[in-house]
């Protein structure tokens, strides 16, 4: 077990929120072996330094930026993918796909575009970037691997992935961003026409830390890490829950065109299927949680997201079942702790949920909406399979598309 035996396990939503929010706790980011691909990234910063850098990164999640990525990247990408799919039915005329693979490909390209690595928008580039993502993610989680030789192998692969990313994605993206800045300088391009990307922020040194190459590359890798799996898993899980819901309540089908209903579906799905399993923080001083549990200075406390998100005091009856119309206390967000909390709350919250109430700009909802238009449904002959690891994320979910004809004539991007 990575945690020492005296680590305090938290069971309630209130305790977990304190763990995430209280300045008494800090995140241990000092795992030495991962430093070459994490050093300088936002999550390693604390206090005012974190706030200053996060403020710069927030620009990527502002409504205008989200709208740009929806209109210029994601929707055209999904449409062209569905159009391409419509050309290749199976021998029996059925259009089949593996949903996790399909959405990971789409969100790898989306993440690449958000980073500013346009090569990720090509099929080859998307495949390469996903392979980089997989090795980077394994490297990030290496502290949970106890076999020394295996740990070394994972770290070496993560380092190779980092070098590949810097050469094939970061460097060309940076050159392109600098050329665009030069065009703005020369009056050939309006500043408002610059794509809102992380590499764009880096090229303009929007924060002094971005002058440092290590920090800049690692910040991009962290964004890649956060942007691919969260949305991919969310779409797979929410479609799975939604199909079960519609089977139980067929009349609810009439609500599918309502984006606010889909937003409720997303938030309830996030509550039940957080992107991460546990959250650990270390106490700077003795601390008592709202439940009365205590942790000593210098010792860790941890909680599981699903534990916090299924606290009966907050979520009421049937807390482990899916109910998009669940009544929740006003002071609690429907998604619970699934985006973390405190100063490190996930930047992806606004990318996933979009604008307040309307969910405009919610990237995965645009994908979901187009999939529903294309008649997506589970393959009745093959069930979902979960990954055989601690994440429990979907590994395979065979689906069929029953209405690809409207997409067939679309011009590819």
């Amino acid at each position: 077990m990575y945690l020492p035996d005296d680590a305090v396990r938290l069971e309630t939503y209130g305790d977990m929120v304190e763990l995430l929010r209280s300045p008494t706790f800090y995140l241990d980011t000092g795992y030495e072996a991962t430093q070459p691909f994490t050093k300088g990234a936002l999550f390693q910063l604390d206090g005012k330094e974190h706030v200053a850098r996060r403020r710069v990164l927030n620009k990527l999640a502002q409504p205008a930026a989200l709208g740009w990525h929806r209109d210029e990247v994601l929707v055209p990408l999904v449409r062209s993918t569905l159009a391409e799919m419509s050309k290749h039915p199976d021998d029996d005329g059925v259009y089949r796909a593996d949903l996790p693979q399909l959405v990971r490909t789409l969100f790898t390209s989306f993440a690449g575009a958000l980073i500013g690595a346009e090569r990720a928008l090509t099929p080859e580039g998307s495949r390469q970037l996903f392979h980089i993502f997989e090795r980077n993610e394994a490297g990030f989680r290496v502290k949970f691997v106890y076999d020394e030789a295996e740990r070394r192998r994972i770290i070496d692969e993560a380092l190779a992935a980092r070098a590949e990313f810097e050469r094939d994605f970061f460097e060309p993206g940076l050159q392109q961003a600098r050329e665009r800045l030069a065009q703005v300088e020369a009056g050939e391009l309006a500043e408002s026409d610059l794509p809102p990307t992380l590499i764009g922020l880096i090229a303009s040194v929007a924060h002094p830390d971005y002058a440092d190459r290590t920090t800049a590359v690692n910040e991009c890798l962290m964004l890649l890490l956060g942007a691919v799996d969260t949305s991919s898993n969310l779409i797979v899980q929410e479609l799975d829950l939604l199909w079960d819901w519609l089977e139980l309540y067929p009349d609810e089908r009439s609500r599918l065109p309502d984006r606010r209903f889909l937003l409720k579906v997303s938030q309830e799905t996030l509550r039940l299927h957080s992107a991460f399993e546990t959250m650990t923080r270390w106490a700077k001083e003795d601390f008592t949680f709202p439940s009365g549990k205590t942790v000593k200075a210098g010792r860790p406390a941890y909680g599981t997201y699903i534990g916090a998100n299924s606290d009966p005091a907050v979520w009421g009856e049937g807390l482990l079942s899916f109910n998009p119309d669940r009544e929740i206390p006003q002071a609690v967000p429907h998604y619970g702790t699934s985006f973390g909390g405190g100063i490190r709350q996930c930047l992806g919250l606004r990318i996933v949920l979009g604008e307040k109430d309307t969910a405009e700009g919610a990237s995965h909802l645009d994908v979901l909406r187009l999939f529903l238009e294309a008649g997506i449904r589970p393959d009745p002959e093959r069930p979902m399979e979960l990954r055989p690891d601690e994440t429990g994320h979907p590994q395979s979910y065979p689906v069929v598309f029953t209405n690809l004809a409207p997409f067939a004539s679309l011009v590819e991007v």
Partner: protein
Amino acid sequence: MSNQVAVARVPEVPPGSLTACEAAGQPICLVRTDDGEFFAIEDRCSHEAIELSGGDLDGRTVECPLHGSRFDVATGEVLDLPAWLPVKTFPVAVAGDDVLVDIGDG
């Protein structure tokens, strides 16, 4: 019940600014818009414990410096996530050079 407290002097608060003040122990974010109008909101984001006075003002909208939540300075209403609860607003009056914030019962 009215409880007006002088929190600043008009010449010290430039248009288009956010100023951290205190009124009887209540942290206040004093807002002066580009057109010179004053507003007062509690100086704490409803989402996380951070001062809104450290954020950005755009018209009548203040953006939290941490996660980018945006609030209407006149109504306290949330305009952008991740905050979902409004911030408290306080009536403001100008008497001579004094900016007065009414914190009510506190």
